[in-house]
C-alpha cells in the first residue's frame, strides 16, 4: 500500500504551529519518508490564523495535498476552518488536552505545541527515543520542561497504529529560500545585501545567521542593488533578494548592471497581487515583468526553480553565469517555493572562475572580443573604468555613433553566447508518459502539483527552468509528438502562454489559478481530466 500521510497543524500566530510542523516533518524524515511542508500565515504578528500542512510519503513529494488525515488544532478556529478537508477516517486532535498538560506541569503556554506533537507521535506509534532525540535537537529553550511535558503527553496517549519505517536516505530539510542561499554560497557568494520584503526576507535572515558572507541591510532596494553593483565592480560576488515591489525599484539598476557588464544575482520571490498585493501569499504574476525588467535593449538570465533542489542548483548556476557573462541574472521564484520546506539532496554546485585579464598592456574594461566577453580586472590593481553611460572600450563615456554600434554589437555577441550557454545547462525537464500526445507545461513552484496530477493521468509534463534566454531548442524537443498543450500557472493572464506564443508555440488550454493559494494535485487532476 502507498504510504502517504497529510497532517495539518494550525493555531494563532505565536502558538508555534509552524515550528511544530517542522518538528513533525523531521520525525517523518527520520522514519525515512519524503516530506514537504506548506506554510500558510497572515501578515500579522500575533493572533489571526496560521497553519502548516505536512505531507510525508514513500514517493517523491513536492507539494501538499488538499485533503488531510490529521488535524492538530492548537485553537478552535483550526477545526472550524479545516474540518471540511479531513479525509474519511481522519483524526482531529484538539488543543484542550495539550494545554491542560502544560498547565498541570506549570509550563509556558507556548509549550502546548510540544504536547501536541507528543500526542500525535504516540497516536502514530513513533518511538519515544526518536521523538525525544528530535525534540532535544529542535528545542533551544527550557528543554527539560518541554521534555517533561512531552513525556507526560506521550505516556497518557493511546497508540492507534504504527507507521512503518522506510528504507530511504534521511536528508536535511530546507526551505526554498535556504536552498537559494546555500546554492549561492557554494558558487562563491561574498556579499548579500537586502531590504526586508516577504517572501524573500528569510534569505537575509538565514545568511545573516550563517555568517559565511558579508550580509547587510541597507536603506532601500535602490540602495541595495546599486551597492551590490559596487561590490561586484570591486570583484566580490554579490546578490540580493526581494519581492515584486522591491524588484520594481531595482529595475533601473538591472539595466545599469547590463550596460556596465557587472555581474549580479537578484532573487525575485513573487507574492500575490500587483503593488503591495497579498504579502504572505503566493502567485506567478511577475514572469513577463522579470523577463522585461530594466530599460533598454538587454538580455538577462532568468530562471525559475520548481523545488528546493532546483532552487539550490539554479541559484548557484545563476551566480556562476552572472560572472561568466558579466550580466545581471534573475532567480524568479515565489512564496510557495521560498517558504515551503523540502527534502534536500541537490547536485553539488562549485564556484566557476570568471575570465580575468592577463595583466598585459593597458587594461580595457570593455575590450572588443569575438564572443563579446571582455576579461575582468578590479580597481586597486589597475585602472578600471566602468559606467552606466554608453562607453568606449576603455569605459569612457561616448556619444559617437560608430562606438555606440560597436558596443551594442559587442553586447549582442555576448547575448548570443548566453543563448549558447543553454546547451550546457538543464533548461527544460520532461516527466511522465513521454509518449502522451497531451502534455502539461509549467514553470516554477507549481511543478510538484502539476507533476503529481499529470503523472496520475498518464500525461507528459514539461517544466521550463530557464525563461531567458528562451530554451527553444530543448523545448521543441520536449514537444515532439505533442498535439495538445495545456499550460498551468498561478496568474490570471496566462503569462507563460504569452511567452510561448512569442516563441511560436501555441497553448491549447490554460489552467489558471489566482486565489493566492498554491495548487493542489487533487483539484488539478479534476481540471486536467476535463480537458
Amino acid at each position, binding site marked *: 500500500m502507498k504510504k502517504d500521510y497529510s497532517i495539518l497543524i494550525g493555531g494563532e500566530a505565536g502558538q508555534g504551529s509552524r515550528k511544530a510542523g517542522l518538528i513533525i516533518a523531521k520525525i517523518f524524515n527520520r522514519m525515512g519518508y519524503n516530506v514537504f511542508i506548506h506554510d500558510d500565515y497572515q501578515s500579522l504578528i500575533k493572533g489571526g490564523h496560521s497553519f502548516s500542512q505536512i505531507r510525508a510519503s514513500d514517493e517523491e513529494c513536492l507539494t501538499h495535498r488538499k485533503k488531510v488525515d490529521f488535524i492538530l488544532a492548537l485553537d478552535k478556529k483550526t477545526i472550524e476552518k479545516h474540518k471540511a478537508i479531513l479525509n474519511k477516517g481522519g483524526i482531529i486532535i484538539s488543543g484542550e488536552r495539550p494545554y491542560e498538560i502544560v498547565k498541570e506541569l506549570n509550563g509556558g503556554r507556548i509549550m502546548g505545541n510540544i504536547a501536541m506533537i507528543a500526542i500525535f507521535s504516540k497516536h502514530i506509534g513513533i518511538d519515544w527515543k526518536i521523538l525525544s532525540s528530535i525534540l532535544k535537537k529542535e528545542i533551544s529553550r527550557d528543554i527539560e520542561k518541554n521534555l517533561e511535558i512531552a513525556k507526560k503527553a506521550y505516556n497518557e496517549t493511546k497508540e492507534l497504529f504504527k507507521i512503518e519505517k522506510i528504507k530511504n536516505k534521511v536528508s536535511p530539510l530546507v526551505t526554498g529560500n535556504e536552498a537559494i542561499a546555500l546554492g549561492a554560497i557554494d558558487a562563491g557568494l561574498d556579499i548579500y545585501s537586502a531590504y526586508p520584503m516577504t517572501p524573500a526576507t528569510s534569505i537575509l535572515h538565514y545568511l545573516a545567521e550563517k555568517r559565511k558572507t558579508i550580509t547587510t541591510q541597507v536603506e532601500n532596494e535602490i540602495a541595495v542593488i546599486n551597492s551590490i553593483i559596487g561590490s561586484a565592480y570591486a570583484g566580490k560576488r554579490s546578490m540580493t533578494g526581494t519581492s515584486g515591489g522591491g524588484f520594481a525599484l531595482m529595475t533601473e539598476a538591472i539595466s545599469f548592471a547590463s550596460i556596465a557588464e557587472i555581474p549580479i544575482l537578484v532573487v525575485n520571490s513573487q507574492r500575490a497581487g500587483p503593488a503591495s498585493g497579498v504579502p504572505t501569499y503566493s502567485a506567478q504574476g511577475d514572469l513577463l515583468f522579470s523577463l522585461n525588467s530594466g530599460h533598454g535593449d538587454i538580455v538577462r538570465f532568468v530562471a525559475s526553480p520548481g523545488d528546493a533542489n532546483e532552487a539550490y542548483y539554479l541559484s548557484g548556476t545563476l551566480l556562476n553565469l552572472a560572472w561568466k557573462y558579466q550580466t545581471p541574472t534573475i532567480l524568479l521564484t515565489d512564496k510557495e517555493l521560498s517558504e515551503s520546506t523540502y527534502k534536500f539532496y541537490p547536485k553539488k554546485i562549485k564556484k566557476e572562475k570568471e575570465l580575468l585579464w592577463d595583466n598585459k598592456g593597458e587594461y580595457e574594461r570593455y575590450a572588443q572580443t569575438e564572443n563579446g566577453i571582455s576579461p575582468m580586472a578590479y580597481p586597486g590593481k589597475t585602472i578600471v573604468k*566602468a559606467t552606466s553611460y554608453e562607453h568606449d572600450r576603455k569605459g569612457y563615456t561616448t556619444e559617437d555613433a560608430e562606438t555606440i554600434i560597436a558596443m551594442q554589437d559587442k553586447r549582442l555577441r555576448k547575448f548570443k553566447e548566453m543563448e549558447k550557454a543553454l546547451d550546457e545547462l538543464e533548461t527544460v525537464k520532461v516527466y511522465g508518459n513521454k509518449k502522451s500526445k497531451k502534455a502539461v507545461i509549467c514553470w516554477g513552484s507549481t511543478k510538484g502539483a502539476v507533476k503529481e496530477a499529470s503523472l496520475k493521468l498518464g500525461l507528459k509534463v514539461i517544466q521550463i527552468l530557464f525563461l531567458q534566454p528562451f530554451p527553444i531548442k530543448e523545448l521543441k524537443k520536449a514537444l515532439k509528438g505533442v498535439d495538445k498543450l495545456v499550460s498551468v500557472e498561478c496568474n490570471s493572464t496566462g503569462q507563460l502562454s504569452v511567452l510561448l506564443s512569442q516563441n511560436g508555440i501555441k497553448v491549447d488550454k490554460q489552467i489558471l489559478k489566482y486565489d493566492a493559494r498554491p495548487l493542489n494535485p487533487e483539484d488539478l487532476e479534476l481540471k486536467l481530466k476535463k480537458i
Partner: protein
Amino acid sequence: MKIETNYPNTWCPGCGNFAILEAMKKAIQEIGQEKVVLVADIGCNSKIVDYLNVSSLGSLHGRPIPSASGIKIANPELKVVVFTGDGGSLNEGISHLIHAAKKNTDITVIMHNNRLFALTTGQYTASSPKGFKGKSTPDGSIEEPLNTLELMMAAKASFIGRTYSSKIDYTKKMIIEAINHKGFSFIEVLQPCPSFFNTFQFYNEKVYEADANEKLIKEWNYDEKGRIPLGVFHKEERPTYEDEI
C-alpha cells in the same frame, strides 16, 4: 602614470568644475592614483571621472553613494570618492546621503553645489534659493533651500567641510584631509555655473576661510544675507561601518 586623460572636456568655458578638476588632480597625485576609486553620479559634475586617469564607476543618477558603499565593503583598502551634484544628492538620492553619513561609511562625498540641475538645462534643486527662476519655475521657486551642512550635522557625518571651487589649493587640501579621514566625509564645493546660474561674483564677495566650527554652519542659510564661511566645520573619530561589519 599620467593623471589626465585624452578625453575631450565638454564643460562650458568658465565653468567652476574646471577648478575642482585641478584640485582633484593634485589631491589624487598626493594620495596615489592606484588606491583611489571614483564613483560618479549623473550630471555636469560627474563628467569629471572621464577627465581623470583613475579607476571609476559611473553610477546612476542619485545612486553613487550606495555604489561607493558597496565598493568599500568589498575592498576596504580602496579610497572611495563620490562626485555628485546637489540634484543628485539633495534631490534624487538624498536618502543615501543621510544613511551613509549616519552609518559612517568610510567614503568621501564631494558635492558640486551649483544650486541647480545643470545638465538638464537649469531647473531648481533643493539647494536653489527661494525665488530661483529656472525653466520649470519661470515665476521663481517657491521652496526654501536646504541647509546642506546642517543636514549633514543632523545625520551625524563625521567630517563636514565647505569650499569654493575657485580656491584650488584650499580645495585640494580639504579633499586630501577628507579622504584621509577615517569615516564618512562630506565636502560641499560651491560651484558657479556660468551658463545657468552665474554665482562667481556673489561668492567672490562673500566667501571667507573661516576658523570653522559647528556653530558657524548657521552663519549662512543659502540666502543673500551675510558672509559665507568655508572650512571644516565638524570632524570626529568614530568607528566606521566597515570596521563594525
